[in-house]
């Protein structure tokens, strides 16, 4: 599936497809022609992706073929032992977690699951976790603290679930509790925003010593559509709202909200899973190596300082 702003690259892709169908085993000049088309396509994609508007970046971050948490687990971890339940209410499929091996590092891996097909999406509530999801995440983080293994979270959610049951079971309290506990967790926390960083639902597992972000992911206090309908009184002004909200990885690095951008392959993560996994894994490992050397006491003090320093205010 191609996005509307990718049309020029998609047209070349169609051409390549037709060419291959016509010439299943190209030789000589035909190979040359095929290579020329491939190069043209790559250059076009590069040109498009180096100039994405914030609203186009939102489309990429929400791309139906974008790698989801299970893809990252498959691509990065040699082992994953999924653990279930919050011990209080149930097991939220919108938030998964468990023991994982990344190279020779034992970690607790936690993150939102959006689901691939419709059945799975419904089961996962489209990656919108409920209080039991946040409480499961917290339970696993406390376990990681006890076992002295680092926590790695993967953020990809439109937001915490806005439902009646979720409210009644304390969605606000569950997120708030996580913020407080994560800020003082005595083990390293690496956060990776892989797709959509949707507001409170994202920060609920997002208080990290290191916060990484894939280059085409977005992270925002409110969805551009939601912001547009409130401040523009017009939900179709999402593109304007996306500009104003500064939600891209570049803007967030400038604002010092994130620590590092994980560059995606040309044309976005959905075009090259293997490439995406390789860079993501490398970047996580680099930071795990660094963080594991720091004492728990120093780590929590540093994390506190980091979040305490967030914000820009005036003294008048």
């Amino acid at each position, binding site marked *: 599936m191609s996005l509307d702003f990718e049309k020029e690259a998609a047209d070349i892709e169609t051409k390549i497809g037709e060419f291959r169908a016509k010439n299943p085993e190209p030789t000589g000049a035909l190979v040359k022609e095929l290579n020329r088309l491939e190069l043209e396509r790559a250059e076009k994609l590069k040109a498009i992706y180096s100039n994405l508007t914030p609203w186009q970046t939102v489309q990429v971050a929400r791309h139906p073929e974008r790698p989801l948490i299970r893809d990252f687990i498959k691509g990065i971890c040699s082992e994953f032992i999924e653990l279930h339940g919050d011990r209080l209410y149930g097991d939220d499929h919108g938030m998964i977690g468990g023991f994982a091996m990344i190279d020779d590092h034992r970690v607790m891996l936690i993150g939102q699951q959006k689901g691939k097909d419709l059945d799975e999406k419904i089961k996962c509530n489209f990656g919108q976790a409920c209080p039991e999801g946040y409480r499961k995440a917290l339970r696993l983080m406390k376990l990681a603290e006890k076992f002295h293994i680092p926590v790695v979270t993967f953020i990809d959610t439109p937001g915490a679930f806005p439902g009646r049951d979720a409210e009644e079971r304390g969605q606000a309290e569950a997120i708030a509790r996580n913020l407080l506990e994560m800020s003082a967790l005595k083990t390293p926390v690496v956060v990776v925003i892989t797709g959509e960083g949707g507001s409170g639902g994202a920060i609920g597992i997002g208080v990290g010593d290191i916060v990484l972000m894939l280059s085409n992911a977005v992270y925002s*206090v409110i969805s551009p559509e939601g912001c547009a309908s409130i401040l523009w009184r017009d939900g179709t002004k999402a593109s304007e709202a996306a500009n104003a909200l500064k939600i891209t990885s570049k803007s967030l690095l400038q604002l010092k909200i994130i620590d590092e951008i994980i560059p995606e392959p040309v044309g976005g993560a959905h075009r090259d899973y293997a490439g995406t996994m390789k860079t993501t894994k490398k970047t996580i490992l680099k930071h795990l190596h660094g963080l594991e050397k720091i004492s728990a006491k120093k780590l929590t003090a540093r994390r*506190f300082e980091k979040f305490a320093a967030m914000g820009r205010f005036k003294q008048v």
Partner: protein
Amino acid sequence: MGWFTKTKETAAKPESPKKEDIWIQCPSCKAHIYKEEWEKNLKVCDRCNFHERLTWKERVDILLDPGSFVELNPKVSWNDPLTFSDAKGPYAAKAAETCEKTGMKESVVTCAGKIKGIKISMAVMDFRFLGGSLASGTGEKILQAAMYAVKHKLPYIIISASGGARMHEGIVSLMQMPKTCAALAQLRDANLPYISIMTDPTTGGVSASFAMVGDIHIAEPRSLIGFAGRRVIEETIKQKLPDDFQTAEYLVDHGFVDLIIHRKDMKDMLFKILKYAGCR
């Protein structure tokens, strides 16, 4: 000659006072109430128990011992980290206008003070300032007041009145949620009491951060308290929600608020709880 005009003027002066000057109408039950009575009753309707929103100053006057108020970090004010502008114009203009109108510099006032002799640190939000929204300056003041409590070994009280994070400061606003909670973790580690008072409204990013992690949760009657907005929820689940959904009373029933306290009894209750918490 002038006397004629003059007399006319004086004669016109003692016109009957405007109705609004003498009485007001309860915004909830529409009952007419003498203004004097309304003010004396701390802006609570004595017929239906409706609690009107208060300014930070009114709250301080109700809760703190006279003369004990000392403002903390009075200089901290809003900023515009994103140079944000929406359909109605720049955020900076809106914020400046709000400052002018309210005499405040941010959506919260923090202070040290005394409740029946017990020294406390306190943060009071004010809905008049951009819907009491949580932004950089708000987060900073709430954090600093918590750190003041830690430094001086005082109990901490936050009175919330907020629609949530301030969109105009985007992601920087969102970061005030972990920031304030990180400060409260310091307070917890120092074993100091934290009482969260939720007033109308306490929603969004404020309910999902400092307001919901108190040792004790107190709410004013019928306050709106919740994470997501009613309309968003109804649209998501395609169901009509009960009338009392997300009210303080509803939250008590579901286990997220300890006590609902009438405004006139708030100071006494805080004193009692602080005593149980070992404060002097």
